[in-house]
């Protein structure tokens, strides 16, 4: 089955989104869509607004204009003011550029927190630890162990996250995001700060997630080689505006994109 067959219909639509912080315009009327099961990259020079775009999608920032449309659980939802907690419950999970793990907890506990939205048992039942509470905890443990196996972090599951090297922390963050069984996964520079070997591993994992779980992935990445290799489609931002949108080959040949990266003067 070719890649084109695997990719489905539009699942996320960003429409004319504008975001400003005081006088600073982070995003200006950005429009693009994301199809189900695809690997969508957002690229652009530093300060182009890529992280802000992800933050808008999962509700951390609220745009002043424009809207986001998300197909969740079969129905379309339209919003501008959704908060991040709601985004999580709609099946959006993400990782962060500067690693937002809970440094005081072990790897296992961190990944388990990713499942919090699926936990139904009340705190009273948890305190008494019989029946339903016990079963639910074990059930989630089992689910999480699958992900831990998948990302090959079994050997460090009881290690406090703060003690791990950077590359492994990034992997744990990915595991936590996966634990939520998201339909849309936002990855903010998942390979930054890694050496070649770590990058290859992470690349493999990201592709595996897309293949194995079918998760739609939107990722921000600076490494052009990675982006061109693994993405289905690419959006290019520069100074908060979209300047290109298409397959990696189309984007690579686009003059505006080349100018942006080479720093040619803009009007």
């Amino acid at each position, binding site marked *: 089955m070719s890649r084109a067959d695997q990719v489905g219909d539009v699942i996320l639509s960003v429409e004319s989104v504008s975001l400003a912080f005081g006088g600073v315009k982070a995003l200006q009327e950005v429009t693009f869509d994301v199809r189900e099961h695809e690997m969508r990259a957002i690229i652009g020079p530093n300060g182009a607004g890529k992280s802000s775009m992800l933050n808008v999608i999962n509700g*951390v920032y609220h745009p002043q204009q424009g809207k986001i449309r998300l197909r969740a659980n079969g129905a379309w939802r339209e919003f501008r003011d959704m908060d991040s907690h709601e985004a999580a419950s709609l099946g959006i999970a993400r990782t*962060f550029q*500067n690693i*937002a793990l809970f440094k005081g907890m072990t790897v296992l506990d961190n990944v388990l927190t990713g499942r919090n939205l699926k936990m139904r048992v009340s705190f009273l039942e948890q305190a008494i630890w019989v029946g339903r509470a016990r079963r639910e905890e074990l059930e989630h443990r089992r689910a999480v162990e699958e992900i831990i196996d998948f990302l090959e972090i079994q050997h460090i599951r009881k290690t406090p996250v703060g003690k791990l090297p950077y590359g492994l922390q990034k992997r744990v963050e990915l595991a936590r995001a996966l634990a939520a069984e998201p339909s849309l996964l936002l990855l903010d520079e998942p390979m930054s700060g890694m050496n070649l070997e770590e990058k290859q591993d992470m690349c493999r994992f990201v592709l595996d997630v897309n293949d194995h779980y079918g998760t739609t992935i939107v990722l921000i990445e600076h490494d052009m080689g990675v982006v061109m290799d693994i993405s289905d489609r690419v959006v290019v931002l520069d100074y908060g505006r979209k300047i290109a949108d298409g397959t990696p080959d189309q984007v690579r040949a686009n003059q505006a994109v080349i100018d942006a990266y080479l720093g040619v003067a803009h009007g």
Partner: protein
Amino acid sequence: MNVAFFFEVLIGGLLAGVMYSLVALGFVLIYKASGVFNFAQGAMVFLAALTFVSIMKMGLNFWLSLIVTLGVMVVLGIGIEKIVLRPLVNQSPITLFMATIGLTFVLEGLSQLVWGSQPHGLELGIPDVPMQWLSQKWNINVSQFELFAAGVAGAMVAGLALFFQYTRIGRALRAVADDHQAAMAVGIPLKNIWAIVWAVAGFVALVAGLMWGARNGVQYALTFIALKALPVLILGGFESVPGAIVGGLIIGASEKLAEVYIGPMVGGGIESWFAYVIALLFLLVRPQGLFGEKIIDRV
């Protein structure tokens, strides 16, 4: 309602507030320069007052005692910075705060161990009697002493404000408060700066100790003054010298007014918590205080 009485209460409250500001200034100094919230400031005030009074009792005159006590406070300040704070320099603000709670206990115990725990009186030569012409002309009783204290506090604030704004050391302090790394990068000797700050805070504690000691007597209860300074800081912002004054005025006035006008309706004693509730309400509306800087959380 008796207008003269209202003004009397109001002015009394404002002046009491100024006394709070005196203590709050010490907090602001240290927080401004090192980001540490020094819970032990109250204990430092107590120690300063007790040391001064005890040295005077040993026979030295006023000015000599003052100088000796100042020396003690400066040495103490430098010692605290070196022994308690430097080892904790990279820890979270909460950890540092808890360390200063520990420091409070140490200083309180030390003060009383060395000088004993009997209360002492402190005479500064200014009587706590109403100003003649105010009480005769407008029937308002305002204590001479409290006016004097207000004057001292005002001078102190003006002096500190000038110090921070116009001297080289003051600029260095502000730089350090803003960004330690950057300050080091331009060659500011961090350790010396912190030592200076704590020494100055010790001096401020001494002045506050003298004022409060003269007003209430030098006794263990003096340490609780620090607790009153907290609402002042919340209102005024932790990093603002003028904020400490404005906050003090607001807290002092509203506390007194509440006690006099609302107190009788609920059995009195409101003063123990009213300032805190005001601070709490303020925090909910404007967490950074009147003059503070907005805190932004980044992920």
